[in-house]
């Protein structure tokens, strides 16, 4: 854990582990890229999420199937049908952070997976079709355009604060797969559905 100060407002910031690439000042919402040095490189200022109610909160601790975790960050995405939150969780066992998403009270744990082959352009994908992403034949149940509305906490990857993206989501052999088409990057996330007893918050 590393202590730094917000260069914009002077607030104290704690960087939880070596995987963190972005930290958001909880006081002024300034985003910082984390480098190896003692200083922070200020980025853009995003929207603050401190007023958005949630069941989780930054710093909350718990266990997922007995594996200790800490909630590090939250990213809220907005689309034409509303919004959703993704929570960055760090593991007590030192593994790289993952993403936790809640949908109607049911949790899914997402891991980023390196994309190893081509995927169809988003404008050719229709809801109800099946697309191939790595080894996953994804039955597409959702396709939307969205943007990042705001962030809080800290993250193991950089999140573009501006611009839109297209995402397609669906099921593949018992797992939930999400392809996100950013302006200059395509991300593949593979999720495991969690039982409601799997996640215990302390």
């Amino acid at each position, binding site marked *: 854990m590393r202590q730094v100060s917000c260069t914009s407002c002077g607030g104290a910031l704690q960087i939880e582990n070596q995987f963190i690439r972005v930290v958001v000042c909880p006081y002024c919402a300034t985003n910082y890229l984390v480098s190896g040095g003692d200083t922070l490189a200020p980025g853009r200022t995003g929207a603050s999420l401190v007023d958005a*109610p949630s069941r989780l909160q930054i710093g909350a601790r718990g266990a997922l199937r007995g594996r200790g975790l800490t909630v590090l960050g939250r990213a809220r995405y907005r689309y034409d049908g509303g919004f959703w939150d993704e929570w960055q969780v760090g593991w007590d066992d030192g593994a790289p952070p993952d993403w936790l998403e809640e*949908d109607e*009270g*049911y949790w*899914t744990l997402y891991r980023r997976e390196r994309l190893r082959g081509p995927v169809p352009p988003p404008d050719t994908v229709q809801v*109800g079709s099946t697309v191939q992403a790595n080894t996953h034949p994804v*039955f597409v*149940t959702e396709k939307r355009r969205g943007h990042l509305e705001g962030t809080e906490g800290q993250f193991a990857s950089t999140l573009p604060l501006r611009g839109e993206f297209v995402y397609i989501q669906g099921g593949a052999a018992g*797992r939930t797969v999400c392809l996100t088409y950013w302006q200059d990057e395509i991300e593949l996330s593979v999720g495991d559905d969690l039982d409601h007893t799997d996640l215990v918050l302390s």
Partner: protein
Amino acid sequence: MTTIESGTPSWPVLRRLACPNCGATVSQVTAQAQTLTCGSCHATLSEGPDGVDIDPGAQLPTPRIPIQLGQTLPLDGYPQVVLGRVRYQGWDPADPSDQWAWDEWLVGRPDGRLSWLTHDENGLSLSAKVRQWGPFDVYRGPVIPLGDGRQVPVVERYPARVLGVDGELTSRVRRGDELLLVEGRLGDTRCDVEATANELDCSCGRLLDDDEIEAAFGAEAAERLTPPRPLSLLIAGVVLGSVVIALIMAGASALYGRGRVILAEESAAVTVTTPWTAELDLNHPGRPVQIEFTLLDYLPKNTYSDLDVSIISPDGTDTLISTPDFWHETGIDEGEHWDEEQHVVRSTFVPAQQGRHTLLLELDPEGALPAASVRLQVRDAHLWTTPWLIFAGVAGVIGVIALIRGARSARWLPEDED
């Protein structure tokens, strides 16, 4: 009763907002709420791409089923809070004038899991979102494949629109939203797919049984929400159909089933010592033969006289078939003299053999008359009326009970609410 405005121990109020339409306080209890309605002006506030959209909204009709926002219901083994309501209207694409409506309530468990309580013509069902399912062609797929391997046959596809919303929802739902609904049924399991251009949602659940409905809403609701029982209606239909047939048979028997007269004896001299006999040619074995005896002599007061009636079959078997009883009784009842007698008696027997039979009549020696004149008439191929009437009566009672159990004529249907 708890209301959304005050929250519940398991669903405390997370945020209170001022309604942009009327200024009244609107409470939010789910973290992921994306649609809220104002309890004062019924405006719908929904999360849009650029913030909150406001729809003036309209008050939904009061549901006849006793469900209210904020109410805690014991469902599926958990106390579940009613958070929101969506009222839909579906229509037959081949005949858009054929429309129907139904309600769905969003209910939440203490651990945050959400389910949908649906009241439609099938009764009440509880379902939750299915995360793993498909692939599925919403326009032509014959079964909905679920992640656990089950294949739920599709029973109906139709377009629908949102008539209105109330309370709090975790998705953006607005009046006028349109979707395609695909309904699947597998026993008591029901799976629905809601399809829009951007999303396919699958939810699965089951019909609530009488005990669950009674526990949640009381006995009256259990009685009035239970769906028709197809088996009971089928039984009622079959039984009541047989009643009609039995009544027709009874009427036909009465009109045309008296049979053919094969012997008419105006005055048979019957004694206690020598049998009176007559030959009968019976050509319909298995069909009843009816004999009517009329005592022509006077029977003294307060006496009786029995006939012993026997039949000898073609193979020589002698069978006593009846003992018609003639009587004459008198007395005084409450100061009034009464005098009653029975001098006409009918007997029926079913011959087992075909051919010439011998009928024998004798007077019982213990009776008052040592000899008597008896008129008799014998009809064969007789049809019984009484058994048909008895059958019709018993079957009618069974049929009506089955009909009541099956039809539940006072059911609460969502269509009745308008």
